[in-house]
């Protein structure tokens, strides 16, 4: 199933390693096949209590009144937890790295903003008792207009979803409602292109759907501490978030995890630990808060939907001269991580290609649906879908083979990228060549001989963990190694193949930054703060 192409880039590697490169059995595999691997819920405690939350049936509503008296008296119920019981009831995950403003309550106060938003919690002697108590809670709502479409949400007059961001977009740098990318002049370049492809792409939300749902068990321990067994993907993110919401010093929390039944990004949000810990504090008992599959599927955060518009311009000879991307991330009712994804998406534009004129506008938009979060490929998956469908359409428009078209436009070592960094350590061309050969997809000889490396360029030395220093390698400067495994000698000395298709010309590099300001980007203290300086 898998072959290692050791011949490619061989001169950049020392393969003389002992443990690295071996198919060593997993450290945990015996535990997995014997059932000994211990997930968060494989720890049992006497008098364990169970927490379940009451969830809003409305996408957007004002809470007029709550009567939980019958629930509080229900059999097995030890405690009802209300919004007022939560010590710090407004948070955003990335406040831990000073990105964004606190905007999400652990328990809704006066308004619910998505169907499924937690309003109060019942802590009882069994999940069944908790469910039966929840059914006794009487809440009256005044439904409010709800908004579900990202472009509608940005129109003037649209209902406001999230009071922290009243215009339904995240704020970037204190002045913009989106993340920008501006490189060259895309509009001017498009006007001169032979071929324009202008398309809209839509990715629906999807679920992480790990076989283990989100959950945690908080246990009162010695010395005023709490042990928390958790399914989290980010132990200290969850610990610090829980400490903040509970207004506790972080060293009162002892988080244990590390063996998780699938995450894929859906276990970063710290969904259960804060309330589990609060319940353990209020009852003095161990408390488990475990999402049911229904909750995980509809109310646990999904990968957010994205709507992406791409306008590309290319010349008849196949060079892409301009790419414009406008993308809308559907963050749902609260920020969580989507604000960060928008920046990552902007960083990914225009894909692994050298395009001299690139514009990007990426929005994080709020709607009245379950808040979205990271998922495998965060910020990139939908954009790659859009860009690679575009590449196919462009190839058809200019009459080129789809793989040759990608090789032609692929970035190479030393090319300038749209976010003004030099491309290095590239390998897109080689991947395309190898996959084409594997699939018996014919490509012309000149494309088989193209390379990510510049003729005669010295590769950077690898992997001692230190950032790449400007060192000369110990070995002689290598020539470009031909892909052709039959070993034709064209690589050494002057190549005999026809010159490659003309390369897109880059605009001149940006002006040198003023002395003393790093790489010249403006500071934006409202987003990242000054914690590193």
């Amino acid at each position, binding site marked *: *199933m*898998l072959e290692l*192409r*050791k011949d*490619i880039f061989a001169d950049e590697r020392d393969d003389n390693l*002992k443990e*690295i*490169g*071996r198919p*060593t059995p997993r450290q945990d595999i015996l535990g997995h096949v014997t059932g000994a691997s211990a997930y968060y819920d494989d720890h049992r405690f006497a008098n364990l209590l169970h927490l379940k939350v009451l969830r809003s049936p409305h996408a957007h509503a004002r809470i007029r009144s709550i009567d939980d008296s019958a629930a509080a008296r229900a059999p097995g119920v030890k405690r009802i937890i209300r919004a007022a019981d939560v010590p710090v009831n407004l948070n955003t995950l990335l406040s831990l790295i000073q990105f964004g403003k606190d905007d999400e309550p652990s328990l809704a106060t006066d308004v619910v903003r998505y169907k499924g938003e937690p309003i109060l919690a019942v802590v009882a002697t069994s999940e069944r008792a908790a469910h039966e108590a929840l059914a006794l809670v009487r809440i009256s709502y005044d439904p409010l207009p709800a908004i*579900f479409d990202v472009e509608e949400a940005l129109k003037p007059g649209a209902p406001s979803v999230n009071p922290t961001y009243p215009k339904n977009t995240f704020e970037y740098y204190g002045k913009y409602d989106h993340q920008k990318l*501006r490189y060259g002049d895309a509009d001017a370049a498009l006007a001169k292109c032979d071929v324009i492809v202008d398309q809209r792409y*839509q990715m*629906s939300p*999807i679920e992480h759907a790990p076989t283990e749902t989100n959950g945690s068990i908080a246990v009162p321990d010695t010395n005023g501490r709490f042990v928390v067994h958790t399914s989290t993907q*980010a*132990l*200290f993110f969850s610990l610090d978030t829980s400490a903040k919401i509970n207004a506790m010093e972080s060293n009162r929390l*002892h988080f*244990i995890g590390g063996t998780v039944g699938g*995450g*894929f990004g859906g276990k970063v949000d710290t969904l259960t630990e804060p309330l589990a810990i609060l319940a353990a504090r209020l009852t003095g008992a161990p408390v488990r808060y475990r999402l049911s599959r*229904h909750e995980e599927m509809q109310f646990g955060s999904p990968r957010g*939907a994205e709507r992406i518009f791409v306008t590309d311009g290319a010349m008849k000879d196949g060079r892409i001269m301009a790419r414009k991307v406008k993308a809308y991330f*559907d963050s749902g009712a609260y920020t969580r991580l989507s604000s960060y994804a928008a*920046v990552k998406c902007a*960083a990914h534009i225009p894909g692994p290609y050298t395009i001299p004129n690139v514009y990007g506008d990426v929005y994080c938009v709020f709607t009245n649906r379950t808040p979205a979060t*990271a998922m*495998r490929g*965060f910020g990139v*998956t939908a954009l*790659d*879908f*859009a860009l690679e*469908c575009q*590449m*196919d*359409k462009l190839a058809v428009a200019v009459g080129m083979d789809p*793989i040759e078209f990608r090789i032609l436009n692929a970035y190479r070592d030393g090319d300038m990228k749209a*976010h003004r960094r030099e491309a290095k*350590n590239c*390998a*897109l061309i080689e*991947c*395309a060549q190898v*996959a*084409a050969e*594997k*699939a018996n*997809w*014919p490509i012309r000889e000149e494309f088989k001989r193209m390379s990510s490396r510049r003729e005669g360029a010295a590769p950077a030395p*690898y*992997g001692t*963990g230190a950032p*790449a220093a400007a060192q000369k390698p110990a070995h002689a400067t290598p020539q470009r190694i031909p892909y052709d495994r039959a070993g034709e000698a064209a690589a050494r000395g002057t190549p005999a193949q026809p010159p490659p298709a003309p390369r897109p010309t880059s605009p001149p590099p940006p002006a040198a930054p003023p002395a003393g300001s790093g*790489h010249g*980007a*403006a500071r*934006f203290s409202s987003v*990242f703060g000054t914690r590193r300086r």
Partner: protein
Amino acid sequence: MAKHRGRGVATINYPIGMNLGGDPSQALVHSNPSGKFTVSLSSIDLGQGMKSVTRQICAETLGVPVEDVYVDTADSDTGPHCMGSFASRGTHRVGNAVMSAAREARAVMMEAAAEELEVDAGDLVTDGSGNIHVKGAPQRKISVKDVAIAAQFRQGKTISGRGIFLVPLSDVDPETGEMSPATCYAHACMIVEVEVDDETGEVTVLKMSSAYELGRALNPKLVEQQLVGGAWMGMSHALYETPEPYYPDTRNGPTDFNEYVMPGPGDVCPHDIAVLERPAPDGPYGAKGPGEMCANPVLPAIANAIFAAVGVRIDELPITPEKVLRALRARGGPPPSARGR
């Protein structure tokens, strides 16, 4: 009333680590008196093999067999800070932190061995099998176990090390988007062959051929796990999954796995993979991380393959049979001759 075949391609790259950096991880490595090593982390194994790959990195760096290393994670009391397992950062960030810690521990170990053998530490090598000996004179040796005992009980040295790896946080220019998103990128090309039934709209994935460039395959079987599993998830994403089938209308969402559809064991296809290695200058032994990128190229490759098969473009995910049928109807049916390669 026919089935049509077609192939589609996608090429991608993927940034390694949390966007813009600023996501540190720490590691601690120490020996017990018998010369067995523990790596203490707070990093998370989601199944991607965090415990396994850090174990191999530690063993290689220390110069001991992998059987003599155990990775203990995750415990916030004993494991130093790690940002978490996401953004394809684990191998790169945690791997580098483990290397740093193991290097420090190794240096103490070699000093202790040098003292026992009465030579300079610079004259010693590890044999990777549990011994330390003088370069070129393997008979002048001492076991790692005996070194550990000597260090602990006679020399008063701790064979241990600490490591942290941090890519400094990058600024972002609000006007131009200038930024340093990542220090290295992995690459891939995915070719998918599909069969489209023009009567039902169903798309069957027949074969995948791919090439992934990952810096260094630290453990080829773990890499294979990610690439095969990720490709399945990509196929599932492209053709089946959604909790909001009528997005942006939120109604009629699935609430169980009968309604949230994913392909089963009968839907998998052969996947022929090549792995290329162009070491990242700052990767642990040059490694990058394949954990997220392995699903991404499948989605557009399938969409492009459907176009090659039946001449329609579906630009909305998931590509359900209904969408294929509607597109075919709008087009007036599939093209008369089979397209694609």
